[in-house]
């Protein structure tokens, strides 16, 4: 029973973390058709900014509770600054180009951000454990679990619901949907597509940075943390179907459960089991589980 509890909790917390890390990637691809490799850089910048901020706050004598504000503040700051800089400074000159070229451009940006992170924060690790330990642990069915880890499930649900509401119930979301449906028609109808792109990219960046900021308290923040997450995020969005929000949720859950089952029962397979499942799904549904069929444009 305790093993079953562990598998379910591990899967859900991991899926929650993955969804938070990957959802920005899905949003940006869904609206802008850009496979944003720089997402790992935004994640790392979010983590570094949060860790640095929490450290500064702690040194200044603020209570640990205040550090939660830093986590979200870091995501907003990185989202606005980096998102605007990258979108306005680079990507807007590339719109309409081949998707593969955009992958290369964003990959180059990712490498630049990796080096920038080293220039700004150095190579020594940063620690921001205060928020992680703040809530302590809770016993679930005899299994001690860090409350902070369980919060990833709640936060993922909150972010997912917020995005659903934003896309389906707000004017901006409706406009995004029009752009997703047909960019040319949207422009013909007078929608400012460039602005929609900017706003989408900033929100996507913010979500990537939020993933990093919320992860920072439970890890040693050091150079290279964006690499692993970008690979896993791609696995999630590819399984679910590029650009599909529901696909991201299902993809994260599949990866979460597959990984948890592997760790508990076949630990030696953990290193590749996620990619095995991804390959299996893609062999049956080459565009992922929830990819929308696209009409051929002439």
């Amino acid at each position, binding site marked *: 029973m*305790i*093993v079953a509890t*562990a*598998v379910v*909790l*591990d*899967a859900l*917390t*991991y899926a929650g*973390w993955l969804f938070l890390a990957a959802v920005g990637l899905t949003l940006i691809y869904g609206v802008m058709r850009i496979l944003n490799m720089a997402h790992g850089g935004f994640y790392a910048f979010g983590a570094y900014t949060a860790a640095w901020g929490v450290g500064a706050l702690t040194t200044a004598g603020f209570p640990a509770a205040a550090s939660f504000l830093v986590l979200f503040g870091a995501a907003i700051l990185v989202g606005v600054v980096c998102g605007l800089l990258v979108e306005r400074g680079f990507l807007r000159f590339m719109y309409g180009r081949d998707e593969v070229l955009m992958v290369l451009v964003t990959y180059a940006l990712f490498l630049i951000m*990796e*080096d920038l992170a*080293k220039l700004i924060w150095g*190579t*020594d*690790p940063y*620690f921001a*454990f205060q928020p*992680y*330990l703040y809530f*302590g*642990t809770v016993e679930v069915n005899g*299994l*001690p*679990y*860090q409350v902070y*880890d369980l919060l990833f499930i709640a936060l993922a649900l909150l972010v997912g619901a917020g995005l659903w509401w934003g896309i389906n119930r707000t004017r901006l979301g409706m406009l995004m949907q029009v752009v997703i449906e047909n960019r040319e028609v949207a422009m013909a109808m007078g929608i400012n597509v460039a602005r929609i792109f900017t706003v989408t990219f900033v929100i996507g960046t913010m979500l990537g940075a939020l993933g990093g900021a919320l*992860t920072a308290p*439970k*890890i*040693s923040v*050091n*150079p*290279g*943390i964006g*690499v*692993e997450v970008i690979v896993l995020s791609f696995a999630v969005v590819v399984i679910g179907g590029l650009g599909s929000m529901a696909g991201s949720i299902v993809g994260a859950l599949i990866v979460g459960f597959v*990984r*948890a089952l592997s*760790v*508990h029962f076949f*630990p*030696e397979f*953990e*290193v590749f089991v996620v990619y095995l499942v991804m390959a299996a799904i893609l062999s049956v549904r080459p565009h992922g589980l929830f990819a929308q069929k696209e009409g051929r444009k002439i």
Partner: protein
Amino acid sequence: MKTFETRLAGALAGAACLSMIALATPASAQDLQGEYKVGLVNFLSGAAAGPFGIPARNAAEIVVEAINKGAVPAPYDTAGIAGARVVPVIIDEASSQVVADYRNLVERDGVGAVLGYTSSGNCAAIAPVAEDIQALTIFFDCGTPQVFESIVTSPKYLFRTGATATMDNVAAARYLLDKGMTSPRIAGINQNYAYGQDSWEDFSASVEALLPDANIVSSQFPTLGSGQYGSEISSLLTQTPDVVHSSLWGGDMEAFVLQAAGRGIFQRSTVILTGGETAMFRPVQFQEGTVIGARGPHGVLAPESELNTWFRNLYMERFGTWPTYPSYKMAMAVLGLKAAADKAGSTDKDAVAASLKGLEFDSPSGVVRMAIAGGHQAIQDMVYGVYSVNAETKQPELVERVEYAAECVNPPDGAKALEWIKGGFEGAKCD
């Protein structure tokens, strides 16, 4: 207008000053003739840079500077390496073309020796190339015993001045025996690549040989750089081990400790971190009672000596923190190269290689003996200590140290580590 006498007096005074400055410089440093280019390969980026690459590069920097000045304590108090000024050529180990970078160091930059490599994967890739292009190469840190057991079995130019991971894991099993744990439930969490797998294999085989009643209940192999250990920690908790063995290193080890500490692993089990020393002075939430190693007698586990005191203080003075084991191991490699070249009286690669083979040399970590793999692989004593925070100084320290002689925890020359362990440690000298 100045008179001739005034100008002459000024010139004489200037000449006198210059002579005094020249005299004040150690005579030996002035005698340096020629340059000896040495390639230094460390992680300068990526996750291994902070805990390994930068501390190692820092150590190389201060030791090379001191060597060129002739400022290292005896027996290294002559300037330079075999009388030549050392010129370091530094490159990043975090590269997608490690072998090409290595070849460039040797063939384009013309270095006389290459010192470096932390990653066992990189060592495995470089080892055959080193022999192929006949480049004097000293691995300073990577731990996999495969380097001389299966990859390069008849080395000439390849050396490793740091001990293999075998001794960390044999000593860890012996530690359990010495602590009276005759039938513990044991779990492991090691990274899924050469070093992690070899570490677990050596440890679990040692446990089987030394503690036949022990029960291995779980062996986790997380992906290198994963950072998320929730599931692995749950598995360790559900299997209720008495002992958790881990060779996790760097950011992975620090993240594991952070995540495991809150969930009570350290209270429920004796956790042995074979390379935990790198994070001793970082706020990773180490718990009292954690058994910590430094992959040899390095860092706070190094024996007291003039060389050790000099190195520790110099490092602290320059970088504001105490050196950890990667720094010690790099210092060891540089001093090993100097010892060999000085003994040979030459920086010629064949002369240095012949001299380094089987050499016994002093280091801040005590005596290093190039005793196995035909004199190409070092062995050292192994030490474990228990993590504790000093009540008075509030500083972390390793107490209740347990030491194992090099011949007790390393296979004899010619023996393969795993076979030696499974064969019951034949020839081990543990008294």
